[in-house]
């Protein structure tokens, strides 16, 4: 069985806010849900599947109740929690549920306010006594990956900086982007070192906000007014130190999720016209591009340099909304916005300055958790139908 072509993304919505002191987190979930439902041209009563992750206050029960979803109709729920890539996995799981006839209109929401409210503590597992004291954070866990990547492959800070430069070129056209200023390699290298070798400008933004999507059947999607975008391949994978054997922090679980998605879709990285790649840090993008096969392992530095990721300039336009590096990284979880910009590109609704011509095939890929510690990865291949 395959999910290829069995599910369409019929509605999308990205909250325009990046700073929401006057709103609650459940309220942001409701606002993005409303936005996505209206974008699809559906109503709340059409929802018969609901997906949320660790950002949803209280999880499924309180959210379903708070949103007022029609519980006589709601027949499929999923609270898979894999950090920032949860929503990419939700998209795959929604397609599976739709293909199996378990639901026909699935709503996926993400929202939160790390700038203006407390963030729930990161849950820890069996490793707690053996790791918590060492202070792993996103910055230093990704810093350790970058440090080893530089050691093994000669990757440089200048090459990493090109990823931020490309994101900033795109963000200048996004009126909602948190950082709209075009920056240079020098700007990034001159920004303060946060956790070696990552500078402040190698890091993504921290934003309040959220996003949502509606995933539905081919029949319902065709009955609606939006351009048709469907999922044709999905992969998910996990990676961790696994007892400390053969530790290698220079690759991510994308080496497994990527090929699974490409195989299901029947396409290769060369076919991709636009790429949404999770950009919590510059190193995240570089490693994932290698892992997905856009270039060979170790050659990511050369691949991203000289504007190769800038729309209209380079070979692989990426994160044309400005991405997490410049536009939005709601609740420190970038998976949803990766899907949303890929759908905009496939619909032809991206900003004209960054819209990829004849964009009929896109990838949305992300990781969740800590790349240098334990993480998940999910790859979605999307096609204009």
């Amino acid at each position, binding site marked *: 069985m395959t999910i290829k072509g069995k599910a369409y993304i019929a509605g999308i919505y990205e909250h325009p806010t990046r700073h929401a002191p006057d709103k609650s987190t459940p309220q942001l979930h409701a606002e993005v849900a409303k936005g996505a439902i209206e974008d699809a041209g559906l109503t709340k009563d059409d929802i018969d599947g609901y997906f949320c992750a660790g950002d949803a206050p209280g999880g499924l029960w309180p959210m379903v109740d708070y949103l007022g979803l029609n519980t006589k109709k709601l027949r499929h729920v999923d609270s898979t929690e894999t950090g920032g890539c949860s929503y990419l996995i939700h998209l795959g799981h929604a397609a599976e549920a739709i293909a199996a006839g378990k639901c026909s209109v699935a709503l996926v929401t993400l929202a939160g306010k790390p700038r203006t409210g407390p963030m729930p503590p990161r849950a820890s597992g069996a490793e707690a*006594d053996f*790791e918590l004291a060492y202070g*792993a954070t996103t910055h*230093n866990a990704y810093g*350790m990956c970058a*440090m080893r990547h530089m050691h093994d492959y000669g990757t440089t800070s200048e090459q990493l900086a090109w990823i931020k430069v490309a994101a900033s070129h795109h963000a200048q056209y996004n009126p909602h982007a948190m950082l709209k200023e075009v920056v240079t390699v020098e700007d990034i290298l001159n920004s303060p070192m946060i*956790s070696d070798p990552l500078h402040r400008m190698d890091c993504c933004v921290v934003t309040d906000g959220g996003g949502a999507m509606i995933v539905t059947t081919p029949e319902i999607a065709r009955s609606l007014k939006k351009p048709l975008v469907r999922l044709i391949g999905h992969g998910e994978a996990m990676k961790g130190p696994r007892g400390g054997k053969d530790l290698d922090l220079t690759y991510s679980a994308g080496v497994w999720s990527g090929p699974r998605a490409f195989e299901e879709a029947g396409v290769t990285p060369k076919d991709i016209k636009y790429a949404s790649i999770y950009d919590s840090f510059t190193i995240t993008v570089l490693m994932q591009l290698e892992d997905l096969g856009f270039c060979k392992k170790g050659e990511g530095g050369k691949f991203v340099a000289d504007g190769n990721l800038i729309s209209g300039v380079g070979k692989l336009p990426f994160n044309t909304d400005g991405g997490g590096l410049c536009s939005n990284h709601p609740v420190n979880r970038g998976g949803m916005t990766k899907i949303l910009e890929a759908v905009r590109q496939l619909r032809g609704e991206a900003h004209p300055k960054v819209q990829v011509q004849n964009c009929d095939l896109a990838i949305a890929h992300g990781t969740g958790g800590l790349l240098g510690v334990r993480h998940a990865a999910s790859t979605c291949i999307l096609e204009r139908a």
Partner: protein
Amino acid sequence: MSEAKKYNAPVTNPETAPFWEAAKAGKFMIKRCTTCGEAHYFPRAICPFCFSDKTVWEESSGEATVYTYSLMRKSPTGPYAIAYVTLKEGPSLQTNIVDCDLETVKIGQKVKVVWKPTDGAPLPFFTPS
């Protein structure tokens, strides 16, 4: 700096209590599977490689090599060097490199285990050897 840092005592549980008891005696223990022969860390009752329950405690030399590190400069408790080190016995583990000039930490550097006190069992860290 790191010397002044207060660390929480490990919570411990029946599976890992022998590790922390040995730590109090200054012994750094790993687990080895007698079925597949692989050593692992942190210690589990069941081998994470072959899933055998024939795992035994083994004292590690405490000698290791820095696999990677990152000097965390923005921290309310002061800068610290988080790292993965690879033990002579094979397993790699997360730790901090301590009791040295943090600017001199390097990949490939030889390090050895050093213990830092808590209100319970001490915690293992690594320092240049």
